[in-house]
C-alpha cells in the first residue's frame, strides 16, 4: 500500500476547482489518502477523509481541523506533546492555477525535500505562461497557432481579424478567455483579460478546428499515454463547463483517429514532456488543422488529474518516475583548508 498526501486549495483563482478535483480523487485512487488543504491564507489543514465535502470549505468549518506545518522532510501536526509527523509516501500537488502550477508548491516541496507528484519549478515556468509555452514549443520543434502578445499599457491590436480569441498569459482553465466576434466586443474582452494579467495573447479563433487532449507521464516502463479525447465543445469550454469537467471520474471513449495522427500526437507529447515534466502527470491540449498538430496548452496539473483518460490510473500513479532531488555534499572543505593554512579564521 502506498500512502498519498493530496495537497489542494491554494491562493488561486482555481481554488474551488481544486477542491472539486480533490474530492474526485477520493473516488478514483484506491490507495490510502491524506488530504492537506491549503486555505486562501496559505495555512495548511489536515482534512479527515470522511469530511471531504465542498461545504466544509465554503463554510469555513475546515478551520476546526488540525493545522499543519511544513518542515524539513515532511509535514507535521502540532499536538500537546510536541510535533508529530503526518505519514505518507508521496505528495500529490493538486492545486490548480496559482500556487500549484506556477512553481510555488514545487519550490516549497522541493525545499523541504518532500517527494511529490506534480510539475517541478522549470516545468511550471514553461507551462504557466502561455507566451513562454509558445517560445518553448518553438524551441523544441512543436507547432503552435500564430499569436500576438499585447500588454495593459499597449493594448493596440494592429489590423485585428475577427473572430479572435483573447487569453490572459498566466491563467489556467478558461478564466478571462473570450472569443471576440466583432469590434463591439473587443474593448470589453480586453478589460476582462487584463483584469487577470498584464500580458495577453491574441490568436485567430479557428472555427471548426479539431481539438484533442492527450495526457501521459513517464513511468518505470516508459511513457504511458492516455487515450486521445476529443473534448466536446460548444464554442470553447467556458469556465463553468470546465468547472463541471474537473469533477469527472468516469472514463471516456477514445476519439476515432487514424494511427498516424495518434502517433503524431504522442510524438509531440513526448517532445514536450521529456525531460522537463518528469514527475508530473500532464495533459497537453492540441489543435489539429489539415493533419498538422499544434500545441494549444500544457496542463501540468489537469483537472482531477485527467484520471478519466487513463485505463489504469492507479497503476500509473504507483509506477510514476519521480526526479531525484539532487543532494550537494557540503563538507566545509575550503573553510577547513584555509583554517589549517592560517591556523585560525
Amino acid at each position, binding site marked *: 500500500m502506498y500512502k498519498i498526501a493530496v495537497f489542494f486549495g491554494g491562493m488561486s483563482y482555481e481554488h474551488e476547482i481544486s477542491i472539486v478535483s480533490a474530492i474526485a480523487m477520493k473516488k478514483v485512487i484506491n490507495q490510502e489518502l491524506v488530504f492537506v488543504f491549503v486555505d486562501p491564507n496559505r495555512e495548511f489543514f489536515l482534512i479527515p477523509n470522511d469530511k471531504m465535502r465542498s461545504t466544509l470549505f465554503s463554510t469555513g468549518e475546515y478551520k476546526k481541523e488540525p493545522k499543519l506545518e511544513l518542515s524539513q522532510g515532511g509535514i507535521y501536526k502540532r499536538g500537546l506533546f510536541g510535533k508529530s509527523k503526518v505519514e505518507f509516501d508521496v505528495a500529490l500537488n493538486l492545486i490548480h492555477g496559482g500556487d500549484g502550477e506556477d512553481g510555488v508548491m514545487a519550490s516549497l516541496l522541493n525545499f523541504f525535500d518532500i517527494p511529490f507528484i506534480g510539475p517541478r519549478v522549470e516545468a511550471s515556468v514553461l507551462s504557466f505562461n502561455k507566451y513562454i509555452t509558445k517560445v518553448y514549443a518553438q524551441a523544441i520543434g512543436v507547432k503552435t497557432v500564430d499569436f500576438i502578445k499585447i500588454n495593459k499599457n499597449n493594448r493596440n491590436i494592429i489590423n485585428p481579424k475577427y473572430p479572435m480569441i483573447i487569453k490572459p498569459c498566466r491563467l489556467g482553465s478558461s478564466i478571462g478567455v473570450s472569443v471576440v466576434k466583432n469590434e463591439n466586443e473587443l474593448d470589453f474582452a480586453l*478589460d476582462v483579460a487584463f*483584469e487577470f494579467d498584464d500580458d495577453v495573447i491574441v490568436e485567430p479563433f479557428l472555427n471548426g478546428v479539431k481539438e484533442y487532449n492527450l495526457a501521459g507521464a513517464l513511468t518505470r516502463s516508459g511513457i504511458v499515454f492516455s487515450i486521445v479525447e476529443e473534448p466536446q465543445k460548444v464554442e470553447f469550454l467556458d469556465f463553468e463547463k470546465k468547472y463541471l469537467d474537473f469533477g469527472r471520474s468516469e472514463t471516456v471513449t477514445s476519439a476515432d483517429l487514424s494511427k498516424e495522427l495518434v502517433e503524431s500526437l504522442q510524438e509531440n507529447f513526448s517532445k514536450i514532456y521529456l525531460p522537463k515534466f518528469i514527475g508530473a502527470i500532464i495533459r497537453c491540449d492540441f489543435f489539429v488543422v489539415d493533419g498538422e498538430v499544434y500545441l494549444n496548452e500544457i496542463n501540468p496539473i489537469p483537472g482531477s488529474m485527467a484520471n478519466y483518460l487513463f485505463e489504469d490510473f492507479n497503476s500509473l500513479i504507483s509506477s510514476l518516475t519521480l526526479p531525484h532531488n539532487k543532494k550537494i555534499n557540503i563538507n566545509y572543505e575550503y573553510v577547513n583548508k584555509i583554517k589549517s593554512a592560517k591556523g585560525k579564521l
Partner: protein
Amino acid sequence: MAKKDIFYKNYIYSISYDIVNFNATRDIVFLHGWGSNKEVMKSAFASHLIDFRHIYIDMPGFGNSNNDQVLCTQDYANIIQIFLDELDSKPEVIAGHSFGGKVATLLNPKYLVLLSSAGIVEEKPLDVKIKIALTKILGKLGLKEFTKIFRTKDASNMSQNMYETLKNVVNEDFSEVFANFSNTAVIFWGINDKATSLQSGKTIAKLIKHSTFNALGGDHYFFLKHSKFISEIIDGLD
C-alpha cells in the same frame, strides 16, 4: 467580469463592470446601492431590456472595485462619468438604487430611473439619535475606538475610509439636486421600504418636475421582484 482603470484626483480606480447585449445601440447604466454590488442589479435586469446595451458597474469600494480614499457622492458621479467616457458611452437611461439613485441623478441622464433612491434626510428614531450623541461625546474624549460598537451592522465590517465615506453621503440632503433635475425621471418605490421611506419617494416625485411615481409591493429591494414591470416601463420611454 471586466476591469477598467480610470484616473481621478491623482488616484487610479479599478472599476469592475459587466456588459450585457453588446450589439444593442442604446445604453442603460445600472448603479447599485450602498453595501450592494452590480451582481444584484444584474440578477434583476440582465434578462430584460433586450434593446439596450446594459452596463453594470461596481462603484469604488463595492463588489470588485476597490477604494482606499474617502469620497463624497459628487466624487462617485465624477468617477462614473470618467468611466463612461472611457467606455465611449453616452447612456440614454441611468437607473440607480438607493445611494446609486443619488449618483445617477448627478450624472443627469436623459432618462433617470430611481429605485428607492436615497437623498431625502429621514427623521431618525430616538435610539439612533442617542447613539450618535454618545459617539460624538466619546470621540471628543479621545475614545474613538469605543465608538465602533455603535456603528451600524453595515459599517462594522467596513474599512475606515469607507466608513468616512458613508458618513459623507448618508445625511446629504439632495432636495435641491432633485428639484434642479430637468430631464425625465421614473421613480419606483417599495411600499414597505424601511431604509428609505415611501414618504421620501413621494417627496422626490414632487421635487422632480417631469416624473412619474410607482409604489410597488416589497421592501428596499422591491425591484428584484418587479424587474419585468420596471423594464417594460423603461422600454416604453421615448
